[in-house]
Each structure stands twice: as structure tokens, then as C-alpha cells.
């Protein structure tokens, strides 16, 4: 049956309209970054073994950074003045971003081939099978890539935004002694990310999933000589493993119940599953656990803010634009399963909504510019999960795309700011915190380009039309509202409460989070760029705009941030082709979306416009509140700032979640490991009873035996005689 299906699929693939177009070069897209990784890794290793004039170890200056705040991004970790660049910096600057740009061009060529093939021709995905990877009885797993509209979108985002961030890194990491190593990791990350989005079955996606986790770990702890950075990497790695457990269990369940792990095969087999059955619900919930780990959702979001210890472009690429959105992608990819499990969908929506508001509220009171953006990312990921959770897969993916644009812009902009701050502190030998907003202020005079570009991104994330964030966020909240009545999710029950009530709660949470988003983003901009400068008298003259290699990618991202909404314009704003992304993704998630909507009536046009107006109003109110309430002029530098009081203190300390986890999970686990598992089981039971016990037993038995060897001939003779008598006795008695 399975082989029959496979044979049918293969004949279908041979005649696929894309099989003789640029899509045949699909394998080149991930291979190019892998090549870049190989070259950069080689350069890094060669340089390490043959110290030249620009010996990296000679340029290392950990001691001079000892005074920095823990867990911070030490942009351009340079010695004072005259820093020799890495001896292979030139070649790396060519290869690192070069392979990404090439990969992007290949991806664009494939995209146009797909466009040319036409919508009807792309009803089925193109599965390119390279070799049989795990042929074990019923388990047949191929190394195969799946090209469809969803993976194409992700490939374009990953290679496009990735290429921009690589170019930015050329400027940002310019003087770093580990320059080729940095690009090696970054290239490797892109390779695994492409593996993740192109894999045609769950195990192959899992390989990419683990690979990006590894690269994330390596890049968070890139400056590992500072223990806080290394710890942050470790934390990300360990927390992600918790999520991977869910992914693995979901795969086991899939194979046990459906007998296949291919996306195409699962899609076919899922048609035979009952809607809302326990199996499919369990599979989806376990999958979501994996997604919550990777995409930093409650309760596994804690690693993402700490991940800001890595270089800022890494935060932009991995911890904002691509890797953390893998969970959203996975749910959209598994839409055929999630649409069958309304309860699981409801859980996804609620976790997403909770995460959105929870993280946004923490973001309100953070002082570190990257921490604000980190919590903002967690919050926006919550929105994406609201989207894919409520069966609005297109809306979730739309927000994923626009978020990749504006959040990458924000992170790279903050990178520029940190770069400028660092350079200024560097000139005067000051070791103050270059990422604390209390040390910034008034930067618009010194870096006008970054100032304007970051404001564009801020308005986009706040949801001001006609910027990209407005359309995507509005579509998510609109879809959520529409599905609150009559959809399969609305009819499901969770804890005895109907889905309708839950969905309205999620909608209110989402709107409140939108308000907070506007507030904290405006706050960040006000404290960073407005008001008087607080950097310091000596440092002020050295504040300057970043070089063009850094501002260039920012400009491109800003254009995308402004124009990203065109991807999927709603009907009420026909500024161009309406619903482009809807039509593009229709073959992939169309059926699933229809199944979730069920009998939900469409929202009346008047009400829809009202909702849009409400969303815009909330965004504007948020910005106005922030501008009215916050007085950048009254801020003082970090070293002279007072302690926060009351609830503010709770927010500054992130609701003490890290401390709670530490007390409730980490300490008991470590204590049990130490006291029971190490001292008790390992040292006591295994070493004591097992290993030494066996030794003692052998020695005792040997001692007993040796007692018969008295050397007394008489004794031996007696034993012999008694033995003979016994044998004789036994023989005669028989």
C-alpha cells in the first residue's frame, strides 16, 4: 500500500510542471551556505594554527572587558585603538555574504519558475528525492526536499533577510578576532534553516531543527570567554531540548498511527482521522511543545531574552527573523493535522495570546535596548501563534514575513546604536554599559539615518497603517475575531469552557498586547534617540553613524517594512493586488483553513472596518501615552538611576520567572542529581554495591576457597578419603 502510494507519487513527480525548470537547482540553495561554512571554517582553523601578524589570540582582550555588565553583547570586542583585522577577513567578507546572495538569487529564480508554471500547476508540491536515508522495514525516510508555496516563502525570507544580515555583519563584526568563525557559524545556521524549511518529512525537518539549535548555541556563546555568554548559550540549548522531546514524541505518535512521516503521506493519511480525536490532538499538542521551545512561547520562552548575549546580527537573524519562527512554520506545515484538532488549536491560540501580553508587559520596563526587542520578539511570536492556532495559517505566515522585515530592521538598528555607543566608549576607555538606554538619549543628532529607519520599524510593529505590521497584525486579530463564532475551534471545549469564550479572551489579550507594543516601542525610541544625550561629555564627540555597509541593509529592510503589507492586502485597502499571499498559500493550507472555519460566518464589512479602526486607535493611543507619560529629559545614566519600586520592580525582574524556574526546577533537579543520583545511585549503588561489591564478593569467595588450601597433607588426605567414601556410599546406595 505504502509502496504503491510512493510509486504513484514518483510518477506524479516525474511529470511535475516544475521538474525541468530552475526548481531542479533547489539543492543548490542549502548547499551554497554549507560551502560557505566549509570555507570559513577552514580559514578560521588555518588562522588558528598558523598565527600570522594578525594573530587572533594576540588581539584578544577579555581582561579589558571584565568590567562590562554580564550577559551583554560586546560589540566589536577590540583592544584599545589600532586593532589588526583577522588576516583572512577579506576573503571571509567575500565568501560569507556572497554565498547567501547567490543562494537568494537561486531562490528568486525558482520563485519565478513557480510563478511561470501558474497556480493550477502547483496544486501538488514538488518533492525532490535525493537518496534513501532510513530504510528500516516500514519506516522509509528519504533525504528529500519539498518545494511548495510555503517552503518557497520561507526560503525567500531566510536567504533574503539572511543575506542582508550577513552584509551588515561585515561592518558590525569588522574587528572581531573570530571573524571567519563567526561567518562559518552564520553560514552553517542558514544551511540548517534551509534544511528545516525544505525538508519533505518530519525527521529531515528535525535535523534542521537541531542544527539551527546548535548554531544558535554556538553564536549566543560566540564570545565564550565571558562566562555569562556561555551560560546563556547553554540555557538556550537545554530549554530547546525540552521542546525537542515534544517534537520527537509527536513523530513517534505519527509513525505509530499513520505509518508515515512524509508531509505528503501524512496529508493523505490524515484524511482518515477523526476530527478532534485523541490521537491527533496528542500529536498536535506534542508538536506544539516543540514549537513552544523553539519559538519561545510560555513556558519555554525564558531562553530567548538571554540569547541576546550573542552578537546583535545574530539576534536579528536567528532570534528574531528566522529560527524562532520555525515553530510557526511547523504548525503551518502541519496544518493538515492541526485543523483536525480544535482543542490543540485552542491551546495554541491561548498560549500565543498569553505569551504576547506577558512578554509585552515585561518589555515595558526593560532598560537594555536588546532586551526590549527580545521581549518584543517573544510577544510578536505569540501573535503568530494566535494566527496559526486559530486556523488563519496565512495570517500567521504573513506576520512571520513582515515581522522578519521590521524586527530584523529594529535589531540591526539597535546593532548600529550599540556599535556607535561602543565606539564612543572605546575612544575614552569607558566601561559603561553600551546597551543600556539610560546611557543613550538624543542619538538622533548623531545617527539620523538609523533614527529614521528605526522609527519606520517602530510604527510598523505598533500597527500604524500602511506599514507592513499593521496589515499582518490586523489580519491575525481579524481572523481570530471571525473564528470566535461558528468555527470548529469555537465549538471545541477546553476545561469545560466553550472555545468562543476563550477566543474572545485571546482577542482581548491580543489587543491589549498591541497597546503595550506601541507603548514599549515608543518608549525605546524616546529613550534612545530623543531628549538630551546621557552618554557622557567625553564620549559625545565620538558618537557617529555606522558605515554604509551597515546602514545599507537597514535601508533595504526599511523598504520591505513599508512595502511588506503589499504581500497580502485586505479587501478594505485595495492599494494593489488583494490577498496575494492568500492565493499563493492556498494549495498548501487552503483545505485546512476551510476545515477550521467550518460554519463561521464572515465578519460584516462594517464591523471589520470598525475592528481595524479600533486596532489603529489602540496603536495611536499607545504611542500617545508613551509620548505623554515618558520624559526622557528626566532620565539619568544607569550608574545614577534609582531602584524601581512595587510592580515596576516585578516587571524589571521579568516577573521573577527565572528565579521561580530556578527554585522550582533547576535547584531540585541539580539537588536530586547531586544528592541522590550522584552520591546515592552512582557513588553508592553502582560504584559501591555494583563495582566494589563484585570485587569484594570475589575476594571473599576466594578467601573461603583458600582456607581449604592449608598445605597440610593430612587434611587433604582426609578430604580425599571422605570423598571416596561418599562416592562409594552413593554408588552402593543406588
Amino acid at each position, binding site marked *: 500500500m505504502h509502496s504503491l502510494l510512493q510509486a504513484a507519487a514518483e510518477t506524479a513527480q516525474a511529470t511535475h510542471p516544475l521538474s525541468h525548470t530552475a526548481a531542479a537547482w533547489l539543492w543548490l540553495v542549502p548547499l551554497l551556505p554549507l560551502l560557505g561554512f566549509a570555507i570559513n571554517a577552514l580559514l578560521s582553523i588555518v588562522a588558528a594554527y598558523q598565527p600570522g601578524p594578525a594573530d587572533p589570540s594576540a588581539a584578544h582582550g577579555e581582561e579589558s572587558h571584565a568590567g562590562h555588565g554580564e550577559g551583554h553583547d560586546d560589540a566589536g570586542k577590540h583592544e584599545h585603538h589600532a586593532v589588526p583585522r583577522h588576516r583572512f577577513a577579506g576573503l571571509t567578507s567575500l565568501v560569507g555574504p556572497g554565498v547567501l546572495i547567490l543562494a537568494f538569487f537561486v531562490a528568486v529564480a525558482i520563485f519565478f519558475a513557480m510563478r511561470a508554471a501558474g497556480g493550477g500547476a502547483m496544486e501538488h508540491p514538488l518533492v525532490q528525492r535525493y537518496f534513501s536515508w532510513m530504510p528500516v522495514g516500514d519506516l522509509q525516510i528519504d533525504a528529500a526536499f519539498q518545494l511548495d508555496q510555503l517552503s518557497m516563502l520561507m526560503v525567500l525570507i531566510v536567504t533574503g533577510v539572511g543575506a542582508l544580515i550577513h552584509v551588515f555583519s561585515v561592518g558590525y563584526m569588522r574587528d572581531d578576532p573570530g571573524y571567519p568563525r563567526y561567518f562559518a557559524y552564520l553560514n552553517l545556521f542558514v544551511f540548517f534553516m534551509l534544511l528545516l524549511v525544505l525538508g519533505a518529512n518530519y525527521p529531515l525537518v528535525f535535523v534542521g531543527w537541531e542544527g539551527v539549535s546548535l548554531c544558535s548555541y554556538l553564536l549566543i556563546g560566540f564570545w565564550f570567554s565571558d562566562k555569562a555568554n556561555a551560560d546563556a548559550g547553554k540555557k538556550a540549548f537545554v530549554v530547546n531540548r525540552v521542546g525537542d522531546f515534544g517534537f520527537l514524541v509527536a513523530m513517534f505518535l505519527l509513525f505509530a498511527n499513520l505509518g508515515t512521516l512524509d508531509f505528503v503521506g501524512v496529508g493523505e493519511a490524515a484524511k482518515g482521522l477523526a476530527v478532534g480525536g485523541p490521537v491527533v490532538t496528542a500529536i498536535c499538542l506534542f508538536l506544539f511543545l516543540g514549537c513552544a521551545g523553539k519559538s519561545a512561547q510560555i513556558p519555554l520562552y525564558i531562553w530567548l531574552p538571554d540569547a541576546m548575549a550573542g552578537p546583535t546580527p545574530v539576534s536579528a537573524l536567528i532570534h528574531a527573523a528566522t529560527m524562532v519562527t520555525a515553530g510557526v512554520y511547523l504548525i503551518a506545515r502541519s496544518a493538515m493535522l492541526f485543523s483536525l484538532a480544535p482543542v490543540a488549536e485552542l491551546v495554541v491560540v491561548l498560549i500565543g495570546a498569553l505569551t504576547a501580553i506577558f512578554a509585552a508587559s515585561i518589555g515595558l520596563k526593560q532598560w537594555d535596548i536588546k532586551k526590549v526587542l527580545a521581549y518584543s520578539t517573544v510577544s510578536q511570536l505569540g501573535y503568530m501563534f494566535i494566527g496559526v492556532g486559530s486556523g488563519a495559517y496565512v495570517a500567521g505566515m504573513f506576520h512571520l514575513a513582515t515581522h522578519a522585515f521590521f524586527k530584523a530592521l529594529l535589531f540591526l538598528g539597535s546593532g548600529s546604536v550599540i556599535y556607535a555607543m561602543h565606539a564612543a566608549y572605546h575612544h575614552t576607555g569607558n566601561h559603561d554599559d553600551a546597551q543600556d538606554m539610560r546611557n543613550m538619549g538624543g542619538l538622533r543628532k548623531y545617527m539620523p539615518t538609523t533614527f529614521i529607519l528605526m522609527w519606520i520599524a517602530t510604527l510598523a510593529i505598533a500597527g500604524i497603517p500602511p506599514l507592513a505590521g499593521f496589515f499582518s497584525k490586523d489580519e491575525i486579530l481579524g481572523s481570530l475575531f471571525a473564528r470566535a463564532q461558528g468555527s470548529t475551534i469555537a465549538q471545541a471545549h477546553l476545561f469545560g469552557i466553550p472555545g468562543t469564550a476563550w477566543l474572545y479572551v485571546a482577542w482581548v489579550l491580543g489587543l491589549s498586547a498591541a497597546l503595550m507594543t506601541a507603548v514599549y516601542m515608543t518608549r525605546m525610541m524616546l529613550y534612545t534617540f530623543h531628549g538630551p544625550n546621557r552618554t557622557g561629555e567625553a564620549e559625545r564627540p565620538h558618537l557617529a553613524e555606522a558605515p554604509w555597509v551597515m546602514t545599507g541593509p537597514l535601508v533595504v529592510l526599511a523598504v520591505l517594512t513599508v512595502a511588506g503589507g503589499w504581500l497580502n492586502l485586505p479587501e478594505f485597502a485595495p492599494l494593489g493586488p488583494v490577498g496575494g499571499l492568500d492565493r499563493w498559500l492556498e494549495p498548501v493550507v487552503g483545505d485546512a483553513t476551510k476545515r477550521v472555519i467550518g460554519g463561521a460566518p464572515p465578519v460584516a464589512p462594517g464591523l471589520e472596518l470598525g475592528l481595524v479602526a479600533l486596532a489603529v486607535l489602540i496603536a495611536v493611543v499607545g504611542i500617545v501615552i508613551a509620548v505623554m507619560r515618558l520624559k526622557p529629559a528626566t532620565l539619568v545614566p544607569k550608574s545614577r538611576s534609582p531602584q524601581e519600586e512595587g510592580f515596576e520592580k516585578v516587571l524589571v525582574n521579568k516577573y521573577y520567572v527565572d528565579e521561580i524556574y530556578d527554585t522550582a526546577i533547576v535547584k531540585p533537579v541539580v539537588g536530586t542529581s547531586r544528592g541522590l543520583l550522584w552520591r546515592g545511585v552512582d557513588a553508592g549503588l553502582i560504584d559501591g554495591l555494583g563495582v566494589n561489591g563484585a570485587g569484594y564478593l570475589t575476594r571473599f569467595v576466594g578467601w573461603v576457597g*583458600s*582456607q581449604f*588450601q592449608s*598445605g*597440610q597433607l*593430612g587434611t587433604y*588426605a582426609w578430604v580425599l578419603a571422605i570423598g571416596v567414601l561418599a562416592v562409594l556410599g552413593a554408588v552402593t546406595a543406588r
Partner: protein
Amino acid sequence: MLAEALFFSAVLFAIGVFGVLIRRNAIIVFMCVELMLNAVNLSFVAFAQSYGATGQVFVFFVMTVAAAEAAVGLAIIIALFRHRPTVDLKNINLLKG
């Protein structure tokens, strides 16, 4: 005739075993071993009367081996006595574990 011979052989053998078990002088123990061998020889010869000459052939074998054994055994005892001036088995316990 056979019964008397076997009885005599058994008595001789028992004396030999008894001597090996309770005496401590190496020479005497050695002689007791010889006694046991000869007790067995007596049985062989007695049986040979009734069942053919095979038993007598065995007796010759045993006597040959016993002679060789006596030579080797006595040589060991003499060597032992030269090494440490005693033939008391109680004091010769080098082969203990």
C-alpha cells in the same frame, strides 16, 4: 580362598589408609601408600585365580610404577630433609593458599 584373600587385602588397604590419614612422619605415610598399592595387588592376584591372567599383568604394572614412585618419593623426602631437617608433615605446609 578368594574371600580370605580379599578380606586380607581389605585389611591391608584399611591399615594403609589409616596410616596415611593419621601418621605424620613422611616416610611412614609413604610406606602406607605402598601398603595400599600392595593391598590392591593382592586383590588383583586373587581375582586372577578365577578370571584369567589379566590381573597379574596389572600387578606387574603396579609394581613397576610403585618402584618408580618409591625412587622419586624417597628422593623428594631426602631432598626435603636436607633442606629443612624434618620429615614431619605438620611442618611441611608450603602449598597453602
